């Protein structure tokens, strides 16, 4: 037991959680904390907007697999992180948010919270539906327990964002602090290990399968189960499709990789998954963007569904074998049982059929006409980057082109807003990822519309010396919305033309970053190579044709069998 202020206890708790960096913006209700932070070894990265800070923490968490921390002052500071938390919630990302709050008591009024004090917002009420857990500290002595709970809950089971709200007086009052306690949370006991009987059933089904296929989701990345996934796939020669969030959990250069399924999945993955007789779905919530309409999704397949969150199993798709468990131990147990029973599968009619389809798909792949198209640029980018390079994306056409055409090889190297589709996510997330992995190149694939939503973080990137590369695929449009208007609204381009788009190169230069325009593929290659060598953030502005669409595409309200356009 030690006597200290709430602010000191907070920093001590963060040290115990091995936090080395906080992304945030200060303010009146955080002053006691920042004063203690000033003397600590924890790095504080000053963002330019709290939404950016939250996305940075999210990008950091996704890149490294430990909790990312963001901090904002009370009222508007706290409400500005809401989008970031909602984003982390839908993508199961372990973000811990710390918010300042007006004091519980003040000298002239007895109780201050609830009186609409200056910069007061009910952030607990506001974030209840978009956090896994949130808590308001009522007394300084509660700080160690609150922080410990927030980190434990954010990172265990199905990860997700948590929030600790710290009224200003709880930061300054001294109390006996207990950091040693063994954390017992009565209502929280995540189930990590699968039931052996269900494993047995799954193995039996897989052994009998003639056309088995794996659908791997974001849970595989989160759980670090890529090696186990690869073992099973190779043992049974099972083709592997990934969901959008699952991208990078299986090497896309592997012969068994089918690429992504879903609304903008590959034709190969979307068509082959419909042929499967057994589908091993792991760490995916089988959401509508992945499955298309459920009517006709894997019509002949018996589905084995593995998820650490019991509520996801059977929520959208009825399954044959439900397995509640974390992807890593579950896949490991399945592999052990399979390996005891069979030797490595040889080529069989199913895998031959898949390979033929893949060869056909690759030979007919259309990357668009002209020298510099988005798909061609992404293929070229792959050649220029090492395997461990991290790609972050904004939201829209840029994101879908990146998912389709940039082949990921290592886990956790594709960071994108899947569930919420948050424009403005990619750039700050890239900054967070670079802080987590300073030795890996980090590239944000951006659209001009999305980049403009958080472009002010150029200030953070330059000032804090966090060099990333931003490639702006610039069509002066909200491209994905325009694509839908082109395809489904008779080309009535309402509210998508951005008009006076700034000169992104000059904008970057104004912040002290590098800014370059490119007009050809050769130019792009040379600029990109330079950007990877320089120690400063570089924005590469690439004009693309505003009429370019992302294909393949499953039209809204249709099933995977209706995938159209492109190949």
């Amino acid at each position: 037991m030690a006597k200290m202020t709430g602010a000191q206890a907070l920093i001590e708790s963060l040290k115990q959680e091995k936090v080395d960096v906080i992304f945030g913006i200060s303010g009146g209700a955080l002053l006691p904390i920042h004063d203690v932070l000033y003397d600590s070894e924890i790095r504080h990265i000053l963002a330019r907007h709290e939404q950016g800070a939250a996305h940075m923490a999210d990008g950091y968490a996704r890149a490294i697999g430990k909790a990312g921390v963001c901090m904002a002052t009370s009222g508007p500071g706290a409400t500005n992180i809401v989008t970031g938390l909602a984003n982390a919630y839908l993508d199961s990302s372990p973000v811990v948010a710390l918010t300042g709050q007006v004091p519980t008591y003040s000298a002239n009024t007895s109780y201050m919270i609830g009186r609409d004090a200056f910069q007061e917002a009910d952030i607990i009420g506001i974030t209840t539906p978009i956090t896994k857990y949130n808590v308001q500290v009522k007394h300084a002595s509660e700080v160690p327990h609150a922080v410990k709970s927030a980190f434990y809950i954010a990172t265990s089971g199905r990860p997700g964002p948590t929030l600790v709200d710290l009224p200003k007086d709880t930061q300054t009052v001294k109390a006996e602090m207990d950091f040693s306690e063994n954390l017992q949370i009565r209502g929280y006991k995540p189930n990590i290990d699968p039931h052996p009987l269900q494993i047995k059933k799954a193995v039996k089904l897989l052994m009998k399968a003639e056309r088995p296929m794996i659908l791997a989701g974001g849970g595989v990345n989160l759980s670090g189960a890529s090696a186990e996934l690869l073992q099973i796939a190779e043992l049974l020669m099972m083709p592997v499709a990934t969901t959008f969030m699952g991208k990078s959990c299986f090497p896309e250069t592997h012969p068994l990789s089918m690429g992504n399924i879903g609304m903008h999945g590959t034709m190969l993955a979307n068509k082959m998954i419909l042929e499967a007789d057994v589908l091993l779905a792991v760490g995916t919530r089988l959401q509508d963007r992945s499955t298309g309409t459920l009517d006709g999704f894997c019509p002949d397949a018996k589905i084995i569904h593995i998820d650490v969150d019991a509520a996801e199993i059977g929520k959208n798709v009825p399954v044959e074998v439900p397995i509640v468990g974390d992807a890593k131990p579950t896949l490991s147990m399945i592999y052990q049982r399979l390996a005891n029973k069979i030797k490595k599968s040889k080529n069989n009619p199913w895998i031959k059929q898949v390979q033929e389809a893949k060869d056909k798909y690759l030979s007919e792949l259309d990357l668009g006409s002209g020298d510099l198209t988005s798909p061609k640029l992404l293929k070229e980018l792959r050649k220029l980057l090492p395997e461990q390079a991290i790609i972050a994306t904004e939201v829209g056409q840029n994101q879908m082109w990146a998912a389709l055409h940039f082949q990921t090889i290592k886990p956790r190297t594709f960071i994108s807003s899947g569930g919420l589709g948050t424009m403005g996510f990619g750039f700050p997330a890239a900054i967070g990822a670079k802080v987590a992995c300073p030795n890996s190149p980090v590239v944000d694939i951006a659209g001009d519309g999305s980049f403009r939503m958080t472009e002010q973080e150029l200030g953070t990137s330059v000032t804090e010396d966090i060099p990333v590369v931003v490639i702006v695929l610039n069509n002066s449009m909200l491209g994905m919305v325009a694509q839908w208007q082109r395809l489904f609204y008779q080309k009535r381009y309402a509210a998508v033309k951005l008009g006076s788009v700034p000169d992104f190169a000059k904008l970057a230069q104004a912040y002290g970053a590098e800014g370059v325009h490119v007009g050809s593929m050769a130019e792009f290659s040379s600029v990109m190579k330079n950007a990877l060598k320089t120690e400063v953030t570089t924005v590469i502005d690439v004009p693309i044709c505003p009429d370019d669409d992302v294909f393949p595409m499953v039209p809204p309200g249709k099933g995977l069998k209706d995938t159209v356009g492109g190949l």
Partner: protein
Amino acid sequence: MEQKYVHIISTIVEHKPGVLYTVSNLFRRRGFNIDNISVGPTEEPGIARMTIMVTGDNRTIEQVIKQLNKLIDVLKVTRLDPENIVTRELALIKVNATSTKARSDIINYADIFRARVVDVCTESLMMEITGTSDKIDAFITLMKPFGIKEVARTGITSLSRGPKSVKIDD
């Protein structure tokens, strides 16, 4: 479409501010409707019981239970077997009673329903009645011709019959 039934879910929760909001907000957000809810402390300090009545098909109820289980402040969720429970609701009913005849009729009906008169004045009577929701509905219907001034109902509360109890897992 799967048949919808009324289900009673007994939920043990942390007894602290904000938990009712967290639970009711979950129902709102996921589009489940609460037919009826009652909350109160249990025999154990710091622990409350929520009895929630929901109408839905089996898949909906399964989701309701799974989603409730995910809430950190929810300690235990149990779907009660409708064949094997005791369910009660309390209502206070204030009725116009200006004539002697009306007054006597109302008291007679109250006796039959085992309701108790808990307040009397020259113009009205107030009764308390406990029982199943159906019984209370029937009594209210009977009181309507006299002119109901006010009704307050608690929502149902339920426990399983027999020695077994809904306890928090260790």
